[in-house]
């Protein structure tokens, strides 16, 4: 039974999470998995109730996915990987002096989509819960016990591989990366997952750093400081009803529920690109098309993250897509003998979970919306002027090293290094990181099938 104490903690942590992730979201170069997963993992390891950590995570999604578009709108610099598809549209709008227009439309769209997706997912999860029992049945296939959700995961994995930039390499990565992971587990004599997960997360950063430090990145050497041009912003009214046109609102209301469900197995970045490109053709001028695409994409980002995490968590209890197997993986990982996703669904009723998550979403929105609408420019200026990229990257790497050491000692740290180098090189060569996250989850079953051949 959920108590007042738990709800109080949900509210407090949602508030803190929203503040922290507004700042993280505004910062350029902050990868979602690298910034959200280790903190959630640390909170779970610290023994905090998984429902409270889930509420923290939801607030961080709402804050991060709204704030990462702020530097896009004001400076053309993405605040996170998910904001990258918005850059060309923001540049088009900025050229026409519409930076404040896309800023207010984007933030409002984010908030609307978050609530639509959350309510839909909570209702849907309640009704399709029996499907979860069906998907958790293990079938015996040639002597391998295969849970039925594995086929969903494999289907999503193949879709993601086939939509990666380098399709052939992505497809080849599935069995080979599974063998690497299982081989390392055999060498460790331990079912390590956290270290490997963190290794994939920081892979791109580690490879870039190693190239730079070993002098292999001459083409990326720059002279002087980076010049950032911040667009002026007029005072924006707080009333959200004034920001979206009927057409934009209709698109957000239509696409956010659909994409939140599709993200159960499909890539959030892929969906954000796809939907934006799809609706661009509806407008006559490039400027109108860019504003519409930017606005809807901002909502789709939130919706895919919420649906991609909560449907697998509440219905199946196992990760089935790039979101749940990526940033959301800590909730599906055994920590101290408990799998947080299973703990949440077996210790709390659906109503209790819904109340906690809705409370978190309300608190996060009440913090995020006014701050981003009123103070986004000042905030961007403050963060850009006072937080160096070096400090932030240094912190990410240190957190990963500490968590890996806690997970498996020195072997864990070396495991992070091995997996991060392989992941970073594959990513550099056009393999989506989602392919690696999902292969990590599917590795034991894939390896069992490989052994049969």
């Amino acid at each position, binding site marked *: 039974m959920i108590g007042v104490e738990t709800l109080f903690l949900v509210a407090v942590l949602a508030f803190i999470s929203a503040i922290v992730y507004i700042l993280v979201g505004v910062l350029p170069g902050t990868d979602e998995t690298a910034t959200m997963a280790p903190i959630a993992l640390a909170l779970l390891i610290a023994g905090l109730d998984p429902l409270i950590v889930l509420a923290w995570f939801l607030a961080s999604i709402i804050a991060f996915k709204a704030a990462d578009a702020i530097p896009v709108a004001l400076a053309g610099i993405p605040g996170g990987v998910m904001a990258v598809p918005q850059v060309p549209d923001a540049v088009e709008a900025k050229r026409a002096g519409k930076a404040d227009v896309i800023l207010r439309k984007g933030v409002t769209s984010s908030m609307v989509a978050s609530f639509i997706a959350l309510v839909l997912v909570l209702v849907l999860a309640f009704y399709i819960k029996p499907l979860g029992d069906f998907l958790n049945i293990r079938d015996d296939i040639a002597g391998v016990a295969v849970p039925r959700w594995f086929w969903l995961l494999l289907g999503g994995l193949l879709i993601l591989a086939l939509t990666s930039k380098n399709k052939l390499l992505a497809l080849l990565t599935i069995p080979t990366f599974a063998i690497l992971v299982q081989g390392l587990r055999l060498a460790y004599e331990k079912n390590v997952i956290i270290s490997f997960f963190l290794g994939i997360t920081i892979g791109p950063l580690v490879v870039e750093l190693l190239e730079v430090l070993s002098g292999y990145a001459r083409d990326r050497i720059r002279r*002087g*400081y980076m010049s950032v041009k911040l*667009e002026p912003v007029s005072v924006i009214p707080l009333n959200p009803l004034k920001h979206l046109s009927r057409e934009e609102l209709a698109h957000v209301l239509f696409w956010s529920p659909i994409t939140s469900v599709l993200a159960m197995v499909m890539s959030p970045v892929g969906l954000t690109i796809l939907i934006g490109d799809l609706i661009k053709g509806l407008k006559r001028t490039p400027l109108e098309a860019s504003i519409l695409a930017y606005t809807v994409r901002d909502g789709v980002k939130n919706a895919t993250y919420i649906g991609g995490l909560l449907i697998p968590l509440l219905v199946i209890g196992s990760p089935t897509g790039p979101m749940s197997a990526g940033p959301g993986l800590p909730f599906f990982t055994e920590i101290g003998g408990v799998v947080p996703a299973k703990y949440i669904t077996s210790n709390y009723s659906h109503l209790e979970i819904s109340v906690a998550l809705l409370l978190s979403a309300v608190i996060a929105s009440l913090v995020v919306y006014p701050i981003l609408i009123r103070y986004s420019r000042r905030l961007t200026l403050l963060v850009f002027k006072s937080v160096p990229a070096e*400090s*932030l*990257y*240094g912190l990410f790497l240190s*957190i990963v090293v500490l968590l890996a050491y806690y997970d498996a000692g020195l072997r864990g740290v070396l495991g992070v290094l091995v997996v991060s180098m392989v992941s970073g090189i594959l990513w550099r060569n056009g393999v989506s990181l989602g392919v690696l996250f999902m292969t990590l989850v599917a590795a034991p079953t894939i390896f069992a099938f490989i052994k049969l051949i």
Partner: protein
Amino acid sequence: MGRDDPEGSIETVEIYGEYVKPFDLIIAFVTTLVAGVLFYIVAPVLLGALGTPAATRAPLTITIGLIGASIGFLLTLLFIKPKRVIEGAEG
């Protein structure tokens, strides 16, 4: 090139769309890691002295280690400067 580096003499490297000075990055990493490890090592002793049960000592140790890393991060803000020049800051 900008106000803080008028000659454009500082050599930086572009990583993730940010200009980074490799030496500063190493200093930042070492500072945050050392702070994290120090807190991680001291944590069990401190928790033992406070009479914390053994079962909760391990997870709290990593939490205290991460708090140490965060303190290290705040320290780096004092001596590492962002490599950005903001145009239109007054707007």
